[in-house]
């Protein structure tokens, strides 16, 4: 394939994505109530495409057993079967249907990543904002604890914790969420520190606003942008954390499918130019890009820029 053809293909794919995004936005605007409708109109095509992908992923995740042509764990043929009309994406290293594994993987991967990230932000952002607003000893204690936790490399720390506590899904979620929340804490605190010294916060304090109100009404809205940007990335880092853990021999319990481990299981094939491992990796990448396109749109809206 010459470079020109690759370029043509790339242009065609991008165009198709944008058209899909446009179609989705048009349909969504028609189908939704008035308030949402107005917001949707401001969505650029990239964000529309992002939303379309997210909706598809959620749909696939929820209805996985109905969509997948084969069960998650059933061995349906010999290993590494090529793509054909029965097994659209061939079979994996044990002879399980690749497409079905990908579909079930959406459920496990996206579900786990979302819960983990949400938990990490709940813990990290609340404590971070609190530390910056209250200051004093609370800030000192929280910051020192976070310092200690962050001073231990995340991968090695999670390796230690998961070896001690086992690798059930709740532990996995909790361990990664706690380690991730330290990063969120730092960011939230440092952003909030810049806001706390603003004049309008002084004014609010003088008005006698309560702590909770101060944080949620005055500080959070102004700290939201960097936090939202961080959310988009942290979400994706959870996939990577699971993948790196499975590289070191830990991870989800078999025979559950998750994209991170699927990349790991098939990764050596790429050395011979076989693109099988690109499928789960591509699924992760597509979702990451989509989530962040939507995040960018919201970021832009939050910044109040009109152009």
């Amino acid at each position: 394939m010459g470079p020109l053809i690759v370029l043509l293909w790339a242009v065609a794919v991008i165009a198709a994505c944008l058209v899909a995004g446009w179609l989705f936005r048009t349909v969504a605007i028609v189908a939704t109530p008035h308030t949402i409708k107005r917001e949707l109109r401001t969505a650029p095509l990239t964000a529309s495409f992002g939303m379309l992908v997210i909706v598809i992923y959620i749909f696939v995740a929820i209805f996985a057993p109905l969509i997948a042509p084969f069960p998650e764990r059933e061995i349906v043929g010999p290993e590494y079967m090529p793509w054909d009309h029965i097994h659209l994406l061939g079979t994996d290293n044990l002879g399980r249907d690749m497409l079905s594994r990908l579909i079930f993987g959406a459920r496990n991967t996206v579900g786990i990543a979302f819960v983990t990230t949400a938990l990490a932000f709940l813990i990290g952002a609340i404590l971070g904002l609190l530390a910056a607003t209250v200051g004093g000893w609370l800030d000192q204690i929280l910051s020192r604890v976070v310092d200690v936790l962050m001073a231990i490399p995340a991968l090695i720390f999670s390796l230690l914790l998961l070896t001690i506590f086992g690798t059930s899904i709740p532990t996995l979620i909790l361990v990664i969420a706690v380690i991730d929340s330290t990063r969120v804490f730092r960011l939230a605190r440092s952003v909030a520190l810049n806001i706390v010294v603003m004049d309008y916060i002084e004014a609010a304090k003088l008005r006698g606003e309560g702590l909770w109100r101060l944080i949620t009404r005055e500080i959070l809205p102004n700290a939201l942008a960097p936090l939202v940007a961080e959310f988009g990335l942290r979400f994706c880092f959870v996939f990577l954390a699971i993948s790196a853990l499975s590289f070191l021999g830990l991870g989800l319990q078999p025979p559950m499918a998750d994209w991170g481990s699927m990349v790991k299981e098939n990764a050596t094939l790429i050395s011979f130019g076989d693109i099988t491992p690109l499928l789960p990796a591509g699924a992760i990448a597509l979702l990451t890009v989509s989530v962040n396109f939507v995040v960018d749109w919201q970021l832009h809206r939050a910044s109040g820029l009109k152009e």
Partner: protein
Amino acid sequence: MTKTPLFTGGVSRRGVLKGASALGGAALLGPMGARMARAQPTQGGVLRIGQAHGSTTDSLDPGSWENDFMILQAHTRNNFLTEIMPDGTLRPEIAESWEASADAAEWVFTIRSGVQYHSGRTVTAEDVIASINHHRGEDSTSAAKPIVEGITEMRADGMNVIFTLESGNADFPFIMSDYHLPILPSTDGAIDPMTTDGCGPYRLDDLEFGVSATYSRHDGYWKDNAAYFDGVEQIAIHDAAARQNALISGQVDYIDTVDLNTVHLMQRAPGINVLSITGSQHYGLPMDTREAPFSDNNVRQALKYAIDRQQLVDTILNGYGSVGNDHPISPGQRFFNTELEQKTFDPDRSRYYLQQAGLDSLDVDIHLADAAFAGAIDAGVLYSETAAQAGINLNVVREPNDGYWSNVWMQKPFCGTYWGGRPTEDWMFATAYSEGAAWNESYWSNERFNELLIEARAELNEDLRREMYFEMQDLVANDGGTIIPMFAAYVGAYSDALAHNDQIASNWRNDGHRISERWWFA
């Protein structure tokens, strides 16, 4: 109780004589007699070996050697009393010859004279005693302690070393080839276990644990027609893809382990040869026979018929291996039971045995990690699929690789294991199947088997001995606590530039870990 029963058997007078003459016969062939050279080997070049193992926590202490990096190091730097040849026979190495007493409880090894260490010193009988002594005694931390425990006394007499054993053992010279037992220089009756000296084919120039080792040829090496390379480099490359890339792009000449997922693609790469050697390496799934439900042999049998061995060989080993029959003796060995019915996947029979055990269905957990053997978790997943067809609900629990051997193996009632195999039937059975052995993974105790083990060790009549080993294999297969679904080949790969003898040793990876002295650049 960790006393190994290796040395507890009584050996009759005739048995020893016969064993000794057979072994002596191998010795008489001379250093090169057993080797059929394909082409005239040439001297020169530096052999670069990429290895899947090696850890930064390795040590020079021979008692600690456990991974392929250190074992290859052992055979590159050192010599041993005896050497196992590519065809499986034993020949003397540092020992020039040996002789046993009538009851095989006293062995006299005559040490080869004039063998030089890299430092210039000469190997003495005292060195041999000190080298073995390092693994013995109350304070020994050596992994080889159980295998030399049967030695009660050693003394030197000129160039002779006289071993006195607790009880007779016809396989004693085989044990002296163990990789933990290199001959090292001694002072005042003790070796320095951290020495880098040795009397093997290559001098160790530099060693960084878990990274690499470099060697240059030992010019005073005593063997003729051996050690053709000017130098050797060992490089630890843990990642499978990195290892393959290193070979394909010419950064190493040989890799000791190939990822079986991609071996078919590797084979197509130009200038690369895949080397597959099937020996006695086998993968197993031991059950704790003391614990319910595994204490009931019907349950064990049900589980043995619920596994699809051929599927495991095809999928997990990608065809590089052969099906196992729940005993550790490989088809290449002397007393392999050719009459034993090969177990196959048979859900009906599995159900039958379940009914015999009074069960309709069975729920069991199997604890696996890829530390047990490559592909163990996948093997468990495949097994659980076939077991389901027999009404067995097998739940695969993925354990961390970290701490597997201390926390899961021989601790959980159903787990995974691998064995490199042992050169003799007796050694293998005694190590992992006899009652009270430290590594009896299934805690199996069968009176008849234990009797036969001791009896067979003493029996000299080949036919009677064969009969006994046949029965023992039958017992292990149909009453034992370990499912052995497959024998895995050692699969490596090397560049076209390398050449080797027609026959390649199957006792270990890397031509019996002696690739450095047996191979050459064509």
